[in-house]
């Protein structure tokens, strides 16, 4: 089985789906000959040609707006937004149009498509190449938001997203694009959207995260284990929908929850997780729910290491909650 990086696994998924279904097309800025600024679409222009891997003018609202019109007509577009930080000109198209087409037309029209976008910090990208703004989108009925943490999941989830009947925002943790490799099967396989994964089983506390932060979560789990705290690590894999069943099962077992994301704390997706636990599993809790998140500041350049949740901050929260 090939050992692939996250970038290679996503490229592999795109290639497999484009070979399977001629309606799958890619559009975006620099996705063609150059293969994307992160080389995610590398080689696809050469294999599938300019009618299926399309460079567009530099306008995010146009990329998503046109992709909507293509999807309505029966193509299966996979538009790329170069950095999640640049998606806001298309926010109206995503929130007002893409997510609501099926509903507002009474089910007559739908626009299944997958928006791929690298997100998150830790690459020295400053305030506009680092944001983690998934919560804005997770508040949008009609949309799905998928955030893989590694190569194996990324390929299976992306294939699922492309085959989904509804629009999906597929956020790629760019900090780990080339950070590590995993065994990734050749050809097609799918991982269902909305199912979390227990990355490491444990008994004392549930550590909940997604995307790039899973690396910090796993490191914190190891350090906690060394201190005698058995942490169960839950990788949500998608936040809209999120796997409530897996969440509540784990927290009812451990009685303790720490939630990690690099997005700002206030109204971040951790609030939804926390509220769900409080609403439906409060009787199992032995300690307050704690969130470890980015601070409520814009994303900084020089001090990004201070801003991002670190293993030390996660470990501190684990110890505090475990000893409550």
């Amino acid at each position, binding site marked *: 089985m090939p050992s692939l990086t996250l970038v290679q696994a996503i490229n592999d998924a795109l290639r497999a789906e484009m070979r399977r279904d001629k309606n799958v097309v890619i559009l975006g800025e620099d996705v063609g000959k150059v293969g994307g600024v992160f080389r995610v679409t590398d080689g696809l222009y050469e294999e599938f040609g300019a009618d299926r891997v399309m460079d567009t003018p530099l*306008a995010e609202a*146009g990329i998503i*707006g*046109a992709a909507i019109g293509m999807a309505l007509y029966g193509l299966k577009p996979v538009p790329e937004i170069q950095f999640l930080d640049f998606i806001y000109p298309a926010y109206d198209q995503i929130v*007002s*149009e893409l997510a609501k087409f099926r*509903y507002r*037309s*009474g089910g007559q029209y739908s626009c299944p498509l997958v928006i791929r976008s690298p997100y998150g910090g830790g690459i020295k990208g400053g305030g506009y190449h680092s944001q983690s703004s998934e919560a804005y989108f997770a508040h949008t009925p009609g949309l799905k938001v998928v955030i893989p943490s590694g190569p194996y999941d990324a390929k299976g989830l992306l294939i699922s997203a492309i085959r989904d009947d*509804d629009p999906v925002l597929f956020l790629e943790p760019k900090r780990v694009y080339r950070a590590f490799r995993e065994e990734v099967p050749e050809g097609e396989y799918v991982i269902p959207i909305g199912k979390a994964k227990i990355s490491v089983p444990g008994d004392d506390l549930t550590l909940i995260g997604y995307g790039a932060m899973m690396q910090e979560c796993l490191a914190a789990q190891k350090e906690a284990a060394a201190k005698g705290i058995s942490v169960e690590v839950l990788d949500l894999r998608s936040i809209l929908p999120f796997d409530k069943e897996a969440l509540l099962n784990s927290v009812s077992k451990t009685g303790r929850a720490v939630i990690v994301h690099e997005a700002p704390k206030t109204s971040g997706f951790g609030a939804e997780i926390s509220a769900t636990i409080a609403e439906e599993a409060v009787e199992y809790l032995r300690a307050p729910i704690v969130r470890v998140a980015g601070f409520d500041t814009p994303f900084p350049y020089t001090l990004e290491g201070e801003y991002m949740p670190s293993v030390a901050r996660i470990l501190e929260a684990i110890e505090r909650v475990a000893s409550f």
Partner: protein
Amino acid sequence: MIQILKNDGTLKNKMSPEMSPAVLLDLYRWISFLRTLDTRMMNLQRQGRIGFYGVCTGEEAAVVGSGFTLKPEDWIYPALRQGGVALMRGMPLTTYLAQVYGNSLDVQKGRQMPCHYGYKPANFVAWSSCIGTQLPHAVGTAWAAKIKKDPIVVMAYLGDGATSEGDFHVAMNFAGVKKAPVIFFCQNNQWAISVPLSGQTASENIAVKATAYGFEGVQVDGNDILAVTQVTQMAVEKARKGGGPTLIEAVTYRMGSHSSSDDPTRYRDSKEVEEWQRRDPIKRFRSYLDSLGLWNEQKEATLKEKFDEEISQAIKIVEAAPPPLRESLFEDVYAGLSPRLAEQAADLNRISESSH
């Protein structure tokens, strides 16, 4: 500005190609029908029987003339005042009315405010209330058709206000670059609610904006149904042959309020309205048909009576329908009902049942 009929209904220029009497009468029936329908709908609104309505009064020639030139396989992305095009393309009148009533006969299940028609059999795509957002969709559909080598064209409607939106720029630019088979049909009715055209743009007109995007812009008298039909026909043929997009500016006037919720006496001079009344598209076309001997008072009276009867019948059917089922609230958010939505539906049901 291209014109065929002068304000008094006499010919200024020859039509090319000529239209048969049957086609002329068909056009006349449609513009008359829309005038009658809008009048009846506004009455329903004033009586409190429907919540909201936006007429196309004064703009019927632009709506009917542009819609008339399209084939069934072509696609339409409408704005607020093009419901008439859906009717021309076979949407039943009861379906039109049911959308306005938002009841169980509405194919959109009562999800949208009145005048937001969407009807798939007519390739008439439901629009949101957001201004200009449909324009990039139209370009995407046209671009997709080009990729698939389907010989269709896409008609994207907009008002003068929409030309200020970013999505207008984005759509025009993409259409030009990709040479997409799309027609941007701007019904310039001079007013975006209370803001006149001079408050939207410093351009000498709207058609000229196309030049900057590398394609043709045409200004046409929007109250002249023959000119609108001819200009649109040319743009449609050009797009179908691979000649790319056209921006058509149909110069017309919003005779009524923006919608049933608006009072234009607060912001515009009645003299301006009176001036435009003299250019009324229906009176003008009627004079022309009279001069050809194709129409007369008796035919007019018979037609109006038929329209009124048809509309009354449809209202009767639609008003009798109950609201959409409560469960339908949760349908069509996604292709299937998500577990979270299923829970919320069950909650609503439980509480509604127990409070009865």
